[in-house]
């Protein structure tokens, strides 16, 4: 959302501030998805993602809070805090490039981890859900992209 999106009257511009990942699927569907993906529990201070790591997974944080950090010489710089219900790591899921920052747990918690391999299996078992998931991830990416470019364009 930019502050100066001169896009017309309110009716014509539904502000999408929030995207719900797989918003319309049932808890049964979730159960089936969870069989195909990985659930990861962590302690405070643990690294979920390490900078430079190459792994093609994204995470859904279900419990707890994690920080995006950069480790300095003798301290860590927290760039951002990610809260429950957030999705992170989706860029590497798509491009497989090394992680650009470390994600460190601030509290104990749980995250669902979806690798490319998991996704392939999901697509094979539940093509409809997989398509929706991909689409939602695309929306998240584009929203985040707009958001970052929106920042610099004012």
């Amino acid at each position, binding site marked *: *959302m930019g*502050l*100066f999106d*001169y*896009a*017309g*009257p*309110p009716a014509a511009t539904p502000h*999408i*501030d*929030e*995207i*719900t*990942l*797989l*918003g319309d699927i*049932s*808890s049964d569907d*979730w*159960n*089936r998805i*969870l*069989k*195909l993906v*990985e*659930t*990861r*529990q*962590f*302690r405070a201070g*643990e*690294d979920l993602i390490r900078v430079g790591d190459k792994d093609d*997974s994204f995470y*859904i944080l*279900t*419990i707890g809070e994690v920080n*995006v950090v950069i480790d300095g010489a003798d301290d860590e710089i927290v*760039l*951002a*805090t990610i809260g429950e*219900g*957030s*999705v992170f790591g989706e860029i590497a899921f798509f491009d497989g490039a090394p992680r650009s920052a470390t994600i460190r747990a601030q509290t*104990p918690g*749980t995250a*669902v*981890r979806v690798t490319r*391999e998991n996704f*392939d*299996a999901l*697509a*094979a*078992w539940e*093509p409809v859900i997989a398509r929706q998931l991909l689409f939602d991830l695309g929306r*998240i990416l584009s*929203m*985040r992209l707009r*958001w970052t470019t929106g*920042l610099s364009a*004012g």
Partner: protein
Amino acid sequence: MPDIAPKPFPSYLDMPSRLPKWFWHGFRLATFAVLLGVAWLIAVSPETGFALFWKVMIPLMPLLFAVAPGVWRQICPMALLNQIPRSLGISQNRTLPVGVKNTAYFVSVLAFFFLVSLRHVYFNKDPAALLTLIGVALSLAFIGGLLFKGRSGWCGTFCPLAPIQKAYGHAPIVTVKNGYCPTCVGCQKNCYDFNPRAAFLSDLTDSDLWYAGHKKFFVAGLPGFAMGFFTALDPAETGLAAYYLHLAGWIVTTLGIYMAVRIFVRVSDYRVAALSAMSALVIFYWFTSAGIIDTISHMAGTTAPTWSRHIFVGLVLLVSLRVIRNGLSAERDFLAMNDKTAQPKVAVKVDAVRAGGAGASDDLVAENASGRSFAVDPGRSLLEGIESAGLTQDFGCRMGMCGADAIAIVDGMENLSPPSDEELATLRRLGLEGRARMACVCKAVGGAVTIDLKRDPNDLPEPPEPTNLVDLGQTTGIEKVVIIGNGAAGMSVADEIRRLSASCKIDVIAKENQPFYNRMGIGRLLYGRSGLDDIYLMASDWGEKKNVAVWLNTQASRIDRENQKVVLGTGDVVAYDRLIMAQGSRAALPPAAGMDVPGVHVLRSAADAQAIRAWRQEKHCKHAVVLGGGVLGIEAADALRRLNLKTTIIQRSDRLMNRELDAKGSFILRNFLQGLGINVVTSASVATTVRAEGSDRITGVELTSGETLPADLYVVCAGVKANTELAVDAGLKVNRGILVDSAMRTSDEHIFAIGDVAEVPGMVSGLWSVATAQASVAAAAVFGQATEYTPPSTLVSLKMEGIDVKGYGSLETENGAEEFADGDEAEAIRRRLFVTNNRITGAVFVGPPGTGKDVAQAIQKKADVSLILDRLRKGDWAALAEV
């Protein structure tokens, strides 16, 4: 709709209209009328007119700008004229060129300074000049409206009053909705009418420093300009040059102060700008308050006391403090919004996900090498937990039998499920009882556990060895044992023999140039990054420690039974008291033509896997064909797929895994594979490989149907053939494998055969679990101990991520078995179970991961299912977990 927190920066579209339209229309017309009235007064009675205009109306405007700038923007007579063409629909609605958009502000700033400076010269005293000024301003506003769209022809761009409104009203105490733009046409940058609270902030933080600089210049120079203006002497006396020098001096002074503050104090532009603007406001009223009060009281016919002037200035001070406070909070919101933390939120229905098992649990497994910890969901194995945590651990059978995933338990052994007989046997074989567990079959049952994936469990303190061990080698006089083959069978028997006799000399002759590795895991060598390291099953110093001589890269080429010697390919000769043949099997090649074309591969050894990986890279392969739709073929196809090859499986039968699965189970499997992009062709066989003319390697395979599939890599997984040649040459009885009795003895009493190479009456196996079970039997038999081989359960499972496929025993009811099965409505899952005499005698389980977990355990335990038959009849599969 859920409650939405108020937006920190509502645009005018989000603002309520507090007053009706007609009110504003009336107010605008009234203001316009007042202006005309004053103009008339200036014309007819300049003294009163000037007093009213310069001493009351104009001096009160800055206060209005600071408190509620939106009011002025609603009622400004120039805005009224500017917007007439728009509301009549006669505006040309041109878009301001970008360059003009960006410079307009600067123009208006200069116009402001210049026009105000002319007050002392003309406008304060010359009615004609002032009236001209008013007239020209109104006309320009109107012309701007005729030409340009929105409010970009005047209000937000050229209007000399605009900069001062933005400066004093950068954080309005009262916001008023812009009433002129029914729809926003995006006519200007950082429009003050669109988002009054954010406009000045956005201006100052604009990435175009030149653009932002104009705003800074204006606010920085403003207090100086005010000082200069009010302290200037009459230019008529000093001369214009001195006058302008005086003004410029003041502007430069405060500009300098602004810059100095920016340079030396760690403070944002916005804060300095806000302070600067507000000091200009106070300066302004410091000088004008007396005039305002006097004029008003004079008009009212009284005289105001002098202190009222101080009260007035005090009031202005309060207003400016309030604006500064508003500004600080706006800045906070602005920074928070632009902070990466305040990213747009992506929501997941967390509750649904948690309910599905992704919830919290207190009992974590800590892994020392990585520092990670994770919880293992009830019902999941430690291995699955390790994998979920994103850690890697090699595995083979995933049934506790091969020993590939022995992991060091550093602490909390008591918090793991007790080992099954199979696992215990594996642990004993590896000498790891009490120190390690097979991750694939053990579960966390509550309480903390610490493991270490990088630690060789052999390095953990050894539990005290039983002291009363008899050395069977010494008691039986068997001093030399030779083993051919260092696979699962050969190495297991070597280990067991060493356990039974510390003194006996053991030689293992191994053709491959690799220490004992996990043959079941070689598919991962195709696509994995870690090479062979992960698949070795024994510590590198195992032979040394156990005093076993392993001859790597050495073939047994002949057996001299008479002299009890094995002749090696190197010319060396090794004598034996007992010989154990464990040379396994090799991939069988079908009789089809063209098997000698480069690009035809098999997948039996680590070297084969490495050759495929190398070939794929060297030849930039795109298409792979796998012959064989059994477990090996499918696993190979999956590995090739992960190597980014377009892969096709060719299966002779009408379904995949035809030996283990029924039609529906196969069908589900096939759908899954195709979903992954693996092409499956059934009821087909290969007539010949194809080498296109001019090519030095395979380019395709031709099916008996005549169809040709493109292939630059062809992997044959069409069964195995026991390596019986040595035995045949030595005159041992050989059928498909080397024939053995129930003690694994061949037709020569000094020679045993185990593993893939052996044939117990009726069957050659091809399974790891069989190899190790036979190794135990043979080890005892070597020293003359009577043991009887009973085949382990031969549950077949597909080792592939994302699907669970298990097949077992016979799928027939003729011999009196009772069948349990899902109805046809279950589309993506196949569960069939055959029970004879309360034991499971056959099963097909195909479905998403976890589908066959319980049944596999029940089968391995050889469980009595009598107690759950009723529940099974009702389709309650969960009952299997309880046997």
